[in-house]
């Protein structure tokens, strides 16, 4: 009788965990090892487009910073027009003034840590929204850029993993890293020639202005 009761208490979790581990039909290690052996060459391959993307982004941010400087310094609230998306970032309620502050994250801190964190999250959301909204308009990336974009997306995924396990103290630097990676991705997309050509006829420029 007690055996039957014990059986009935077997939860689905117990039953699923008791399933044997599956083994892949073939060893994946040789293919992985092939990737790992020439790491220097792989880095070089992605390094060029990343450097180009970073340079484009710097130029782009510098131009926009100059353009927005008066209003950003005097009245930060009026320059930002995008409400934070409720996508993947954790603070959906961050306000637009936070977002504007994050645009200038290299400026001396004007707010306390909580505000800066909320601002970084809002900035991250805005960039993600732009990337999502312009995905259809963007022409296919050249293969090198595509590899670089995949690499950046991988790095963003890893930052997310670290964020999930991070303490409050480490969160701000991780969110800033996430923002920086999203900016790289934005620059890569924006530097794509055909998108730039069609920008005048599409809302992409407007969106870029809004997220900056």
């Amino acid at each position: 009788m007690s055996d039957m009761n014990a059986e009935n208490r077997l939860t689905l979790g117990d039953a699923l965990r008791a399933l044997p581990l599956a083994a892949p039909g073939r060893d994946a290690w040789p293919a992985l090892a092939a990737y790992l052996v020439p790491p220097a060459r792989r880095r070089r391959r992605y390094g060029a487009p990343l450097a180009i993307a970073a340079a484009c982004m710097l130029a782009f941010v510098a131009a926009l910073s100059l353009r927005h400087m008066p209003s950003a310094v005097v009245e930060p609230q009026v320059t930002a027009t995008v409400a934070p998306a409720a996508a993947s970032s954790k603070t959906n309620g961050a306000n637009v003034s936070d977002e504007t502050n994050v645009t200038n994250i290299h400026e001396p801190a004007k707010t306390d840590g909580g505000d800066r964190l909320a601002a970084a999250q809002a900035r991250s959301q805005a960039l993600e929204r732009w990337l999502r909204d312009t995905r259809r308009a963007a022409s296919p990336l050249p293969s090198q850029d595509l590899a670089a974009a995949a690499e950046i997306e991988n790095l963003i995924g890893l930052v997310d993993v670290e964020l999930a396990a991070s303490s409050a103290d480490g969160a701000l630097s991780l969110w800033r890293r996430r923002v920086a990676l999203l900016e790289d991705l934005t620059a890569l997309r924006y530097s794509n020639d055909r998108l730039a050509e069609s920008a005048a006829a599409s809302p992409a420029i407007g969106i870029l202005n809004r997220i900056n």
Partner: protein
Amino acid sequence: MTASSFQLEVPQSLIDRAKAGEVDAFERIYHRFERPAYTLALRILGDAEAAHDVLHDAMLKVFQCIGQYRNDAPFWAWLRQIALNQALMRLRRERRFEPDTDVEYLTDDAAAPTWVHADASALERALGALPALTRSVLWMYHVEGYSHPEIAELVGKTTSFSKSQVARGTARLRALLDPSPCLIEAGSPACLI
């Protein structure tokens, strides 16, 4: 409660060697986590070839990014998260992110759970018959020990969604393993509640 199969001890020295780029350290890490990672991918995707791809991609990402691992979470949890993200991304890409919503099942909760008497292969078959997203939520919750809010975040849905998928998945497994199930397709006149 049995721990996740990922919950394996990895010596810090091995992680350090992998961070330094030693391929044999990578190989040891790979073989340690090969089966847990493959099993997780297989349970989520329900396809051996896709699971193999995910194993490959996840391990590659682990090795490429191991320098960013900061020791503030167990290594196995970091690696599991990467494998899980890869599998879920694949599911999204394949547009198999549809949950179980259109079928209801009558079950007798007072009866012994049907999985008590099911052998492993029957349970695996039943698991494989679930919609991919439902199966994934069930696996993350019951086997990997993720909470409903964590699952909700991972799949981009609500906590209620996660709870409902666990309930539906459990009921459906119970029905699939029942020798005389009363399965009600939407709109069927039979066995109405």
